[in-house]
């Protein structure tokens, strides 16, 4: 029953590392403040404030500082599942295409004749041409606008699908282009949400893409899902559009290329605007809260070169005419252009409070979401309920642990003590693994640990029962111990693999709390395989070599 030196060294080294990496969790508050201060210092560029330095000093640098993340249900916070309306972007793309299509067809005016844009569902462009016989020429002209899609799968495909229906030319985005657009939209949305949530400076937010068009957002410590939604949900679509007409009529007639939008401050004023913006928020590079010359809160903004050029050209050509600053389909203000504005910077004034102008600047700076989001799921947990859950989970864990330990001693005597040592190491290893992986502990996760305690001793129960059987058949102590381990191992491995299978499936399909449960259960199964088999064997072997009992009682 000797085991080679290297296995002994390896097993105890793993246990020692487990202890080292689980330990920070005992000093949770301290380590958390240390980590927060380190992160804040890194963000600020390496210089620590006195408070940060004090917080950093709470925990020595040379010790591991990974701790278990507490899930939303334990810490309190908000959870949102949003669906990005990726199809919105198709509509914007197609609308943006119209001027180019028009120009291409105008170049063929000789054969095609007059062209007219027809009303169509979003994402489709319908153009009627006066001479249907010239359709092939028109198709060729528009198809010349198409560009190859650059994706891994869609090489060689063009981004536009141009077809003819009688005298009408129909333009869609191609399948490959839609997939590529969706991907870009999702990446952009994720990035923008991340930046907006980071502006609030909360700890460890989770922002993940889920499936084709969904985003999961979890922010601990935030008051409510509604608050979080306000932060990220406000699309802040800023555009500058040319004004066709100012009217008091909410049902004023508009052309195919125009829209009617209300005024933000005055319910009786409406604007007829050109649908196609002169410049949009995407060209914005900076926005700062400021005050205008009358001391009222305002927002200063600056465009990138492309935006600055478009804005400069437009203002030069339209001096004396009004243009509209539109935020989320509402006109904030419609100043008259006094002079050519070449520098690409300007100021938005409106009836803002200081708070509103600050928030508007934040939203503008973070950029506009490329598409609307619909919220499918919202959950809020208050911090008190989280603390209650932690307390309840901890109490249940302690009571469960003591009860299982006493039961094991009652059933197996000294061997029960050995099993309990292995069980304790098992729990230490679970915490070490959770800390190192940066996994999240949820309330069902705590339940998973408590349940693991019950299941982890199963390995030892199998081994001890087998030892008893071997002893009954008259084998000597050393042989019984050896055979107990040997013959129980296939059952233990099979049992653990099947249980692990269930945990993996649970992790794959579950979300939030269920995942937390699957993680602790899965880690618990792996560590219990290690402790119940290898660690307990080391302990029992060491004991046997020390005492050399002639009679063994399990």
């Amino acid at each position, binding site marked *: 029953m000797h085991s080679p030196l290297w296995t002994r060294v390896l097993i105890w080294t793993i246990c020692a590392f487990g202890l080292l990496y689980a330990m920070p969790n005992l000093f949770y508050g301290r380590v958390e403040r240390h980590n927060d201060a380190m992160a804040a210092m890194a963000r600020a560029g390496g210089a620590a404030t006195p408070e940060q330095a004090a917080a950093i000093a709470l925990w020595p640098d040379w010790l591991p500082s990974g701790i278990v993340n507490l899930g939303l249900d334990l810490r309190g916070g908000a959870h949102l599942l949003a669906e990005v309306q990726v199809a919105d972007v198709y509509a914007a793309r197609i609308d943006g295409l119209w001027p180019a299509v028009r120009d291409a067809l105008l170049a063929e005016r000789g054969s095609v004749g007059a062209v007219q844009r027809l009303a169509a569902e979003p994402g489709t462009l319908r153009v009627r041409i006066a001479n249907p016989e010239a359709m092939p020429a028109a198709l060729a002209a528009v198809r010349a606008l198409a560009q190859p899609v650059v994706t891994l799968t869609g090489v060689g495909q063009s981004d536009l699908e141009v077809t003819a229906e009688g005298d009408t030319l129909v333009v869609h985005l191609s399948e490959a282009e839609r997939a590529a657009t969706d991907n870009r939209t999702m990446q952009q949305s994720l990035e923008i949400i991340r930046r907006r949530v980071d502006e609030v400076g909360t700890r460890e937010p989770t922002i993940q893409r889920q499936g084709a068009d969904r985003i999961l957002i979890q922010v601990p410590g935030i008051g409510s899902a509604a608050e979080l939604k306000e932060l990220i949900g406000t699309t802040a679509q800023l555009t500058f559009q040319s004004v066709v007409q100012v009217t008091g009529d909410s049902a004023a007639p508009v052309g195919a290329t125009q829209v009617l939008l209300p005024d933000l401050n005055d319910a009786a004023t409406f604007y007829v605007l050109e649908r196609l913006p002169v410049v949009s928020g995407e060209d914005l590079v900076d926005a700062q809260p400021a005050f205008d010359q009358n001391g009222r809160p305002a927002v200063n903004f600056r465009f990138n070169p492309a935006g600055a050029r478009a804005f400069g050209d437009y203002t030069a050509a339209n001096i004396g005419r009004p243009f509209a600053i539109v935020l989320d389909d509402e006109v904030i203000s419609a100043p008259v252009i006094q002079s050519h504005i070449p520098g690409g910077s300007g100021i938005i004034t409106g009836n803002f409070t200081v708070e509103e102008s600050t928030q508007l600047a934040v939203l503008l700076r973070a950029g506009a979401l490329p598409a609307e989001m619909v*919220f499918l799921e919202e959950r809020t947990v208050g911090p008190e309920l989280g603390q209650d859950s932690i307390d*309840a989970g901890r109490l249940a864990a302690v009571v469960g642990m003591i009860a299982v330990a006493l039961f094991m001693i009652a059933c197996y005597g000294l061997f029960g003590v050995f099993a309990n040592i292995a069980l304790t190491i098992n729990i230490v290893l679970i915490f070490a693994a959770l800390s190192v992986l940066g996994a999240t502990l949820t309330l069902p996760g705590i339940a998973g640990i*408590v*349940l693991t305690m*019950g299941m982890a001793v199963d390995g030892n*129960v199998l081994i001890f029962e087998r030892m008893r059987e071997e002893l009954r058949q008259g084998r000597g102590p050393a042989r019984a111990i050896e055979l107990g381990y040997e013959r129980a191992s296939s059952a233990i491995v099979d*049992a653990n693999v099947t249980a692990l299978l269930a945990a993996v499936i649970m992790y794959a399909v579950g979300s939030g709390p269920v995942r937390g449960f699957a993680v602790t259960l899965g880690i618990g199964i792996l560590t219990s395989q290690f402790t119940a088999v290898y660690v307990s064997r080391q302990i029992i072997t060491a004991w046997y070599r020390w005492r050399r009992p002639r009679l063994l*009682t399990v």
Partner: protein
Amino acid sequence: MAWRLKLVRDKTSIDFFRYVRVTFGASLVAVVLSVILVAVMGLNFGIDFRGGTTIRTDSPVPVDVAAYRAALAPLGLGDVSITEVFDPTFGPEQHVAQIRIQAQGDMEAMAPETIRQVEAALRGVDPAITFPQVESVGPKVSGELIWTALLAVLAACVGIGGYIWMRFEWQYGVGAVVALAHDVIVTVGVFALFQLKFDLTIVAALLTILGYSVNDTVVVFDRLRENLIKYKKMPLRDVMNLSVNETLSRTLMTASTVLISLIALLIFGGDVIRGFIFAITFGVLIGTYSSIYVAKNIVLWLGLPRDTATDGGEVPNEA
């Protein structure tokens, strides 16, 4: 010999097939009844599966369900159910209620404005009320969640059956899967019978039950395989009885340690996870039963190929 707590005697020879008609019949009846119960009474789906909003309220003042209901009536939210929650872990000045509101619209979660209206209305009844938990799930997600949940349980059953087939024989795989299906169906039946809230965490509980139950079954199968090699002439039925008897002590020991930790959670774990823990507790009981009484019956009926080529005779052990 030192004193030991023993759940079963050292050597038992219980005939587990003696009352096969009763035990297997009872299992069959339980499964059929469960299916009927689910079909007739339906499950009390939580918002995870049916969409809607739940709000947990907490107040030092006792809960007045009628007043809450009256306050919410003018909002016209459709079906609203209000239940008071009792739990031994609550303090004396803690009165908790759970309010469930049906889904509004057919896709999105409840709008924050509506939630604010509900909270304001309840504050009108009880100014000291707080809302420690608000959850809202849109019907679009909840519809998908039902399918993922169902798929998860099926995938787990198939995966486990496949693994056992690989490690043992196909008969064992079928036996294990039938036992698993039995455990899951009867557990779901109990949830239908008592109209307990059935949500995603219960699905996690079902998966845990699968993991536990198969664990138990595998241990019996493992011993059966070993004994089949040892006792080549013994009838299958007797080898099975022997194997179950030999592993009986372990089966009950493990069930006990798991139940001990579950009972600790059931009593001290708080009301938030009580349904979840209850499902697992019930599942452990029925899983232990099924690995003794269901899984091996199936294997017995399917029969196992016995290797008769080598005449080993009845050798008690090889050494």
